[in-house]
């Protein structure tokens, strides 16, 4: 009987084993769930960190004129812009990002950027860069790829002339002898800029009108000599013939850089990025009084603030096509001060009173023209460039009128300031990257 101790001990052990197994099961379920949740949270956070990296890179690159500076030392796979950077004031534990930037040089890059690849890994000429941002939280990593594209003015990034007629017609009228159209480079303070090469005083399309490509050159030249033989002396700029004067007919030229399709493409992109969009309808159109200046721009976001030097704007006014060519889409009564890009589509622009515009004024579309209609006692200055792009044909109606004291002076500084608006840069081709991609 010595061995007959009963089953209490085995039974107890069995129960303990079973209950222990259950307890372990419960604990593992309870413990596993937070791990899954944490992994999900970390992965989500890592992805947002990666997106923050793209935004960070955009903020670095978009305001810059020369994007090649970001490619210094880059190979075909690019160069690191930043490593392990925290998001603002958040600590590294909340996630960090590492950003690589590269030029679009690989054969397959067209499928990413939509444009033909470039040749050099270190020189960006097409204002297209590819970003890869990796966000990390703990051991979780997520990658995002995006493409930065900037809408650039066709050609070399600036218009070829102080006054440009890229469209079908270039009928112009000049009154008296106080106006000036000057293709020499000026700074915004009115001084000559040695770093800004001479451009045409007046440029016209080399491909339009289709019946006689480039003929608008003589149309403009003839307009300058009809009312006053001295008027041609008021046009300055790059010389067609280096041996001749930098004034008059020698500075009025047709230019292949005024490609109507490319200019329209730029206009379409710029107006989509406009800071201010206004609609102007027939018959009365839009009349604006005081625009810009310190009082209107005390609140930069105001509809009456058309940009400051530090923060230029894109202003887009959509008109209403009028086959009679009488519709004024925009009448500026002054005083008007603005920095940036002013686009008026499908209607005329009439400028009265004082005007100081730093950047570019584009009048484009059907039955359009621009008139600087101030008096000789008023100041009407444009530092940058003016484009009048007639896409239809309206013989007898002017695409450009200069009277009074109007001065259009080419300014690389003003144009670059206007074109470096970060709203002209877009983030496109946003793609979550799979591991290893």
């Amino acid at each position: 009987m010595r061995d007959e101790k009963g089953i209490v001990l085995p039974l107890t052990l069995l129960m303990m084993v079973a209950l222990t197994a259950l307890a372990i099961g419960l604990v593992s379920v309870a413990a596993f769930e937070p791990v899954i949740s944490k992994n999900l949270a970390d992965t989500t956070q890592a992805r947002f960190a990666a997106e923050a990296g793209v935004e960070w890179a955009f903020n670095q690159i978009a305001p810059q004129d020369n994007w090649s500076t970001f490619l210094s030392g880059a190979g075909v796979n690019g160069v690191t812009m930043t490593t392990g950077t925290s998001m603002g004031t958040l600590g590294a534990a909340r996630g960090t990002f590492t950003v690589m930037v590269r030029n679009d040089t690989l054969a397959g890059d067209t499928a990413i950027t939509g444009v033909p690849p470039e040749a050099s890994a270190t020189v960006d000429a097409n204002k297209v860069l590819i970003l890869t941002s990796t966000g990390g939280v703990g051991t979780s990593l997520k990658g995002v790829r995006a493409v930065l594209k900037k809408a650039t003015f066709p050609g070399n990034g600036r218009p070829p002339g102080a006054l440009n007629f890229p469209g079908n017609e270039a009928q112009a009228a000049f009154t008296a002898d106080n106006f000036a159209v000057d293709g020499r480079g000026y700074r915004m303070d009115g001084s000559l800029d040695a770093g800004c090469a001479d451009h045409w005083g007046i440029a016209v399309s080399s491909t339009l009108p289709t019946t006689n490509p480039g003929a608008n050159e003589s149309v403009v030249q003839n307009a300058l000599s009809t009312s006053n033989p001295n008027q041609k002396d008021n046009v300055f700029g790059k010389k067609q013939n280096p041996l001749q004067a930098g004034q008059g007919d020698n500075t009025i030229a047709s230019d292949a850089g005024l490609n109507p399709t490319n200019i329209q493409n730029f206009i379409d992109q710029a107006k989509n990025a406009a800071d201010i969009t206004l609609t102007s309808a027939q018959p009365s159109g839009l009349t604006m009084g005081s625009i810009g200046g310190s009082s209107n721009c005390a609140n930069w976001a105001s509809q009456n603030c058309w940009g400051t030097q530090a923060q230029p704007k894109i202003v887009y006014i959509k008109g209403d096509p009028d086959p009679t060519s009488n519709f004024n889409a925009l009448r500026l009564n002054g005083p008007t001060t603005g920095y940036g890009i002013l686009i008026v589509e499908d209607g005329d622009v009439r400028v009265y009173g004082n005007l100081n515009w730093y950047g570019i004024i584009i009048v484009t579309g059907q039955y359009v023209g621009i008139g600087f209609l101030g008096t000789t006692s008023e100041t009407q200055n444009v530092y940058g460039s003016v484009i009048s792009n007639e896409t239809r044909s309206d013989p007898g109606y002017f695409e450009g009128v200069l009277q009074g004291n109007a001065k259009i002076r080419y300014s690389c500084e003003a144009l670059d300031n206007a074109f470096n608006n970060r709203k002209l840069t877009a983030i496109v081709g946003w793609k979550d990257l799979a591991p290893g991609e």
Partner: protein
Amino acid sequence: MRLRVRGAAGFTLVELLVAMAVASIVLVGAGLAFQFAAGTLASGSDQADVQQNARWVLERMVQEIRGAGYDPRATLGGGTFAALTSATATSLIMQSDYNGNGVPGEAQAGPCDVTTTTENVGYRLVGDQLRRSTDPPAYTCETPLVNGVTSLAFTYYDADDNVTATAAAVRTVEITLTLNSTTGGAERKATVADRIRLRNR
């Protein structure tokens, strides 16, 4: 001769009955504890499963919807095509142009492969089953993602954050998904939701 066996004094019937009663109470208690613990384990596991399924399905949709409308030819003016081609309360169809040839939503090359990322992807609710298709609206190449969907609601917002029913105008998608599991007879529910801004529009 009377023999006295040491240690073999025996138990009385009363002692035995008392011992059995006590042992029974202990065993019943242990059994109940076991049953309760096992039930809790199963319940927790089921709840975890249904939540995990809901999260996985939501994340799957969110990732694809976020990238909808991928368009290498896009410019400042936005994409050259609509990111969504169909947008209803319980289904959506999105398109992209991954090969950059300017033709979005191209049919998948080769035989049906529901695991791949294609230029044309659709999600729809059929009965209580959420399905993903790589050839919508034909839906000949389609796979179920999860069963037990008791409710699925897509809500669409335009660029001004107003609710819209126009697929081409959609810029943000809100998803609310409820899954139901009746494993073991008990009902487990999990509701998950997210709001996704289309990154490529």
